[in-house]
């Protein structure tokens, strides 16, 4: 469904991602693992078109490499960005409305908003509150719901566990697992390799802007010293 070939991302003079290639098949959950500075967020930003990149990105059979962000969202890609990036001055509901910014079918959109407010009762209770008053875990739920407001074919999750307490992290991963069970294709970017591997069908290990290993959770599990470090086994 998503194919990336020789993706290069530069921030000014610094090249953060040095030509990586990977693929995410329909209905699967693929994770991109790696330590800080590996180029994970740069990759996600390039996939969405938020930062410039070179290389070829094909999605659903079409080349999206040169499309603007809106067009990629409309094609069915959606992201829950790193650090959640919820709009703290907007209400919970307005955040969800914003998630559907590229959609024009109002009734269906309103139904989706109602659906997410029901799915996460805590968000429903706080629909009129500024989203900045939510806890970290609630904000992450909102960020993911917001990303799903576009009814994406693929959901890109950039470090959903970042800065959350272990118990909340488990809740977030349970949520991702449910989404996967519903058939949503997921590209998960994580530092928390243990949790991510548990629900991934396939994983790529990224370090210093290059893919250094790939495989299923069984084969990748303890394949390298870096992997051991990431999973916290070493």
């Amino acid at each position: 469904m998503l194919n990336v070939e020789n993706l290069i991302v530069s921030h000014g003079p610094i090249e953060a991602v040095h030509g990586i290639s990977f693929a995410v098949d329909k209905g699967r959950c693929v994770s991109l693992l790696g330590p800080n500075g590996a180029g994970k967020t740069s990759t996600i930003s390039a996939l969405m078109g938020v930062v410039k990149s070179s290389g070829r990105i094909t999605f659903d059979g079409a080349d999206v490499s040169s499309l603007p962000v809106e067009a990629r969202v409309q094609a069915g890609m959606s992201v829950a960005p790193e650090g959640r990036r919820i709009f703290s001055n907007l209400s919970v509901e307005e955040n969800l409305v914003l998630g559907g910014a590229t959609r024009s079918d109002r009734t269906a959109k309103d139904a989706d908003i109602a659906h997410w407010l029901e799915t996460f009762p805590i968000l429903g209770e706080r629909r009129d509150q500024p989203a900045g008053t939510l806890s970290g875990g609630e904000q992450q739920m909102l960020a993911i719901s917001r990303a799903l407001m576009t009814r994406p074919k693929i959901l890109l999750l950039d470090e959903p566990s970042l800065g959350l307490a272990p118990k909340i992290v488990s809740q977030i991963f349970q949520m991702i697992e449910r989404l996967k069970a519903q058939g949503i294709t997921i590209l998960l970017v994580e530092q928390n390799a243990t949790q991510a591997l548990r629900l991934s069908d396939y994983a790529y290990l990224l370090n210093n802007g290059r893919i250094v290993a790939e495989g299923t959770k069984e084969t990748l599990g303890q394949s390298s010293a870096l992997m051991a470090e990431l999973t916290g086994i070493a």
Partner: protein
Amino acid sequence: MILNPSQKRGLVGAAILAAVLITIGLVVTYFGSRYQLRLVYSAYVNLLVVLAMQVFMGNARLTNLSHSAFMGIGAYVAAICVTPVTVKSISLPDAPWGLNAFSLDPVSSALLAIAITAVLALIVGLFVVRLTGSGVTIFSLAVLVIVHSVFLYRTDIFKGNQAFFGIPQVFSLTSIVILSVFVVFIVRLFRESRWGIQLRACADDEVGAAAMGVNIRRLRLIAWVLSAILLAVAGIAYAYFLGTISARPFYFNHVFLTLAMLILGGMRTVTGAVLGTLLISFGLECVRWLETGPVLLGIDLPEVLGLSGIALGTVIVLTMALRPGGIMGDQEIEDLVLKKQE
């Protein structure tokens, strides 16, 4: 059109504000002196300006200082179109392009003025939306100076600092009260619309909003042009009531006055825009009275020239220092009213 809950609340809020504006209008119409009526009229013109500013500044959270210029463009275009040929042949004998050889009815003149202001705003806006933060502020200041200079030195068209007279006085206090009620609803519904939400999201986190597929430049352009259209309406209302305009009222003093109104009330909300305008309009009259050195409680106060300028500056300084979000912050009027009921 189906409205979502926050838009329904927006309508309630706008209705409350409209009721306040209508009440003030009625009281002044029936009980006010001619002088008070003029004061309230000019306060309502400023209200239209401040509401128009709220559309761009409040939602995009960027500072625009050229608003009075767009108000001036609206006022002058309408004035040039609507003033009878007999008057223009005397007041604008050297006008180019046959500007003194035609005249239109007030409605066509107003529509033409709005259209021309919108086109000019669109052209300027294409540059504005490429800028961020202080870039917008400086750019808009330059626009203000350019427009003012044209008004001032193309005396064959605009008469500069001399009065452009002979504009038919077709507006009354009633007209502007109705107009301001309309504009309150437009501005409030814009704030709660999809566009308004997206603009406010961009102000919160530009990169985050872009990642959601929000086209920031297009949205800012929409808000910029809508703001200019409402400013043109304010300018037209000003010209159609007074019958006389000149370049001075569309320059820095007016920019500063309306900015103080918006900042005091709080630019993020429509309620703030209305509240700030009413408070400063009323407060400034009190200050002007003090300026003349009246006798208060048996004390003969000295004459203090320039007190109103000091007062306005102080309002901005104190608001920015103590309550940067203005009096209302993020609260609209219905938030206060509905909360009390719960």
